[in-house]
C-alpha cells in the first residue's frame, strides 16, 4: 500500500496534473545554461547540467519539428494563465520524462510481492499468497526500489512542487471545499483505528480544532440526481444500485445528470484524498506530518488557510508522499524482524459464515474507500462500495447540496471560457478516477467545460 502511494502520487503530479501548470512548448525557448543554474539552485535532482538540459530540449525540438505532436496536440500552450519562465518549464519537462521512467521502476515493488503491477494478484481473503517471496533477496530488492523512489520524491518531486507553486500562490485561495472525511490507513498494530499512521477523522466547515473520529454508520448515499431509480438516501448496507433502464438524459438544471451517487456524512458532502488526510493528521498534531506542513507553508510564505485550495490539495499529495515513503523502510524492517523471529505466517484460514455483515474502511491514494457486504447462505447478498471519486465528484443531493468538485469550482477565474485551463487545474487536483465511479464522461473531455458553464 505504501508503494502504491509513492507510485501514484508521482504519476499524478508529473503526468496527470503538471501540464496544467507547465507549458512544454515554452521550454523550447529556454536557455539550457540558465536552466541548469536554476535546477542547481532549487533541486537536488541527480541529473542536470547544461548538456543534460540541452539534450532534453533538442529531443523536444526534434519531436516538435517532426510536425507530429501526438499527445501534445491542440492543448492550451501559450495560454495567459501559464506563469512559469521557459527555464522552469524546461526543468519540469525534463523531470516529467525522468518520472515516466522512475514510475515503471517503482511499480516493480508491487510485482515483487504481488506477481505484477497493475492488478497485483497475491491478495486473497485471509492473507497473501506470496510466502515464497519472503526472502532476503526479494526484500532487499524492495528496499532498494523504495529508497530510490523516495530519493526521487525528496530530491526532485518536492523541489519541483515548491518551485512551481511559488509562481502560482494565488491558487492558495482558489478551489477549496468545506468538509473532509478520512477513513485513515496503515494500521501499525491490531488497534484500529487508533494505530493508523494516517489517522481517521472528519472535519466540518474547515474547523481544524473540531476534528472528530469518523463513524461509518453516518454514511448514506443519495440518488436524487443520479441516473438511478428513485429512493431515499440509504446506508451502504441497505444500498441499492438500480440504473435507469433507458437512455438517460443529461438534465443538470433540476433533473438527473450523472452515474454517480451522492455520498454524504451526517448529510454533508465531504472531500476525500491527500488534502483530507493531511488536514486530519495536521489537526491531530501528527508528529511527522505537522512539521512538513509547517515547513511548506513557511517556504511558500502562506498561512494555513491556503491549505483549503487547489494549491493545498496538490501540495498535500507531495507532503504525504514524503511522510509515508519515509515510514515504509521501517515497515519493511518490521517484516524482517518477524522473519528473524521465525514468524512467516502469511495466511489465516477461515470458514465462510452462513450469514453476516462486514465493512472494510481504507484510504487509498485517491481517498477514502469503503466496502460493505452482506452474506446470506454463504453467498454475497448485497455488496456496495463508496469509492474516492464518488465522494469528490458526486452530484447534488435531495437538499440541493453540491458535491466537493462542484463546490470547489465556484468563483474560479477563467481568462478564456473557450480554453478553461483554470478549471482543469482544480478538477485534476482531485485526481479523479471516473472509471472507479462508473463511467460518466471522461474528465479530460467535455464534462469539464460543461461544469464550468453552469
Amino acid at each position: 500500500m505504501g508503494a502504491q502511494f509513492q507510485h501514484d502520487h508521482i504519476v499524478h503530479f508529473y503526468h496527470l496534473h503538471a501540464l496544467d501548470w507547465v507549458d512544454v512548448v515554452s521550454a523550447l525557448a529556454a536557455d539550457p545554461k540558465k536552466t541548469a543554474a536554476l535546477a542547481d539552485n532549487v533541486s537536488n535532482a541527480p541529473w542536470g547540467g547544461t548538456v543534460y538540459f540541452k539534450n532534453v530540449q533538442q529531443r523536444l525540438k526534434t519531436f516538435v519539428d517532426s510536425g507530429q505532436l501526438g499527445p501534445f496536440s491542440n492543448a492550451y500552450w501559450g495560454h495567459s494563465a501559464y506563469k512559469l519562465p521557459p527555464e522552469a518549464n524546461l526543468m519540469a519537462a525534463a523531470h516529467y520524462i525522468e518520472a515516466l521512467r522512475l514510475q515503471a521502476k517503482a511499480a516493480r515493488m508491487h510485482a515483487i510481492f504481488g506477481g505484477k503491477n497493475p492488478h497485483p494478484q497475491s491478495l486473497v481473503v485471509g492473507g497473501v499468497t506470496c510466502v515464497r517471496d519472503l526472502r532476503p533477496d526479494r526484500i532487499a530488492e524492495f528496499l532498494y526500489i523504495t529508497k530510490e523512489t523516495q530519493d526521487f520524491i525528496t530530491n526532485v518531486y518536492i523541489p519541483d512542487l515548491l518551485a512551481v507553486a511559488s509562481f502560482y500562490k494565488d491558487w492558495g485561495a482558489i478551489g477549496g471545499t468545506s468538509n473532509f472525511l478520512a477513513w485513515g490507513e496503515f494500521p501499525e498494530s491490531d488497534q484500529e483505528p487508533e494505530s493508523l499512521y494516517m489517522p481517521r477523522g472528519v472535519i466540518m466547515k474547515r474547523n481544524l480544532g473540531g476534528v472528530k473520529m469518523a463513524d461509518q454508520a453516518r454514511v448514506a448515499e443519495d440518488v436524487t440526481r443520479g441516473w438511478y431509480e428513485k429512493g431515499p438516501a440509504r446506508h451502504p448496507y441497505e444500498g441499492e444500485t438500480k440504473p435507469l433502464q433507458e437512455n438517460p438524459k443529461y438534465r443538470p438544471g433540476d433533473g438527473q445528470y450523472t452515474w454517480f451517487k451522492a455520498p454524504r456524512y451526517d448529510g454533508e458532502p465531504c472531500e476525500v484524498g491527500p488534502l483530507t488526510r493531511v488536514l486530519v493528521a495536521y489537526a491531530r498534531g501528527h508528529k511527522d506530518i505537522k512539521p512538513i506542513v509547517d515547513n511548506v507553508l513557511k517556504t511558500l510564505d502562506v498561512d494555513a488557510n491556503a491549505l483549503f485550495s487547489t494549491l493545498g490539495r496538490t501540495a498535500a499529495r507531495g507532503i504525504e508522499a514524503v511522510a509515508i515513503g519515509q515510514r515504509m523502510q521501517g515497515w519493511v524492517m518490521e517484516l524482517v524482524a518477524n522473519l528473524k523471529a521465525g514468524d512467516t505466517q502469511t495466511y489465516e484460514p477461515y470458514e465462510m459464515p452462513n450469514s453476516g455483515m462486514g465493512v472494510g474502511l481504507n484510504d487509498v491514494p485517491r481517498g477514502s474507500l469503503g466496502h460493505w457486504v452482506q452474506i446470506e447462505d454463504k453467498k454475497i447478498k448485497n455488496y456496495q462500495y463508496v469509492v474516492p471519486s464518488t465522494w469528490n465528484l458526486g452530484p447534488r443531493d435531495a437538499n440541493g447540496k453540491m458535491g466537493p468538485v462542484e463546490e470547489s469550482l465556484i468563483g474560479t477565474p477563467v481568462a478564456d471560457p473557450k480554453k478553461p485551463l483554470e478549471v482543469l487545474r482544480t478538477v485534476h487536483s482531485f485526481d479523479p478516477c471516473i472509471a472507479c465511479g462508473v463511467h460518466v464522461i471522461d474528465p479530460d473531455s467535455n464534462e469539464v467545460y460543461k461544469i464550468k458553464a453552469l
Partner: protein
Amino acid sequence: METEKAFYERLEGKGVSRRDFMKFCTFLTATMGLSSSFVPKVAEVFAAPAQRPPVIYLHFGECTGCTEALIRSMYPWIDELVLEILDIEYHETIMAAAGQQAEEQLQNAVNKYKGKFICVVEGAIATKFDGAYGKIGGRTFLEIAKDVIPHAAGVICNGSCSSFGNIPAAKPNPGGYKGVGEVMGIKTVNIAGCPPNGINFVGTVVNYLLLGKLPALDNLGRPVWAYGKTIHDQCPRRAHFENEEFVEQFGSEEAAMGYCLYKVGCRGPETYNNCPVAKFNDGTSWPIEAGAPCIGCSEPAFWDKFTPFYEEL
C-alpha cells in the same frame, strides 16, 4: 532521413549505448519468436522512421489498467514510444488537450490519417439502449467506434475488455457491453489480458513496423507468438503437477515449497498466455511465482466462466 551514425550519436547523447540498443532489439525479437537475423531490421525501424506511425487510442468501458500496464514498459521506455517510435495522436490519459480541444483533435487525426492510422481500443462497447450506458462528451462509445474504426488501417484491442467484453460484459451486464470485434463485425488483433503484459502490445506493434503486417493470430485473434501455448505447458511448477504435489491451502508448507496450485483453482491448463516466460514489470514476477493461482484473465468471459476463483474446476 537520419543516418545510422547520427542515430547512434543521438542515442548516446541520451545515455543509451549502441550495445544497449542492440540488446533491446534482440530482446524484442527473441520475445516475438523472430530469428536473430531480424535484429538489424528492428534497429532500422526504430532508428529513423520518416513518419512515425499514427495511432488513435480510444478508451471505452474499462479501468485504464491496460494503459497503466503499457506505461510500465521498459524496452522501450514509454517516453521513447511516445516521442520517437509512435505518433499517439489521441489518448485520453496521456494527452494534454482537454474538452472541446480533445474532441477536435480526434476528428483532426482521423481526417489527416484516414486509412493509415492504427486504432488501438481499450475497453468494451455498450450496446443496450443505443449504447447509452457509455458516453464521452455526450457521444456514445458506439457512435465514436462507428465514426473512427472504419477509417483505421487496423484495429488492435489492448486488453480483454475490448477483445472480448470482459468485466463490463460480465453477468448481469446491464449496459449490454461487448467486445469491439463483435460489435463492429470486424477482425481485430486481440492483446488479451486483464491487463495484458505491455510486452505483448509492444511486440505486436513492432511486428507491424518491422514486417508491415500484423502477426499470425489464433482463432480468438490473439498473436500466436504470445498466446500460442497454455500457462500450464510453460509453468515452472509443472513437475509438481505431474508428481501430484499440490498446494491445498495458501500459506501452507506446500505453498512455501512452491507446489502446484491446481487444487486452489489455477486456470493455467485452460489459459493461453506467455506469463511464465515473459513475466511482468521487467521480468520481476508473475502471479504463480507469487503463489497466486492463474485466474485465466486472457480467456474470453473469464469472469463468468472461471469463477468462483480459488476452487478446483
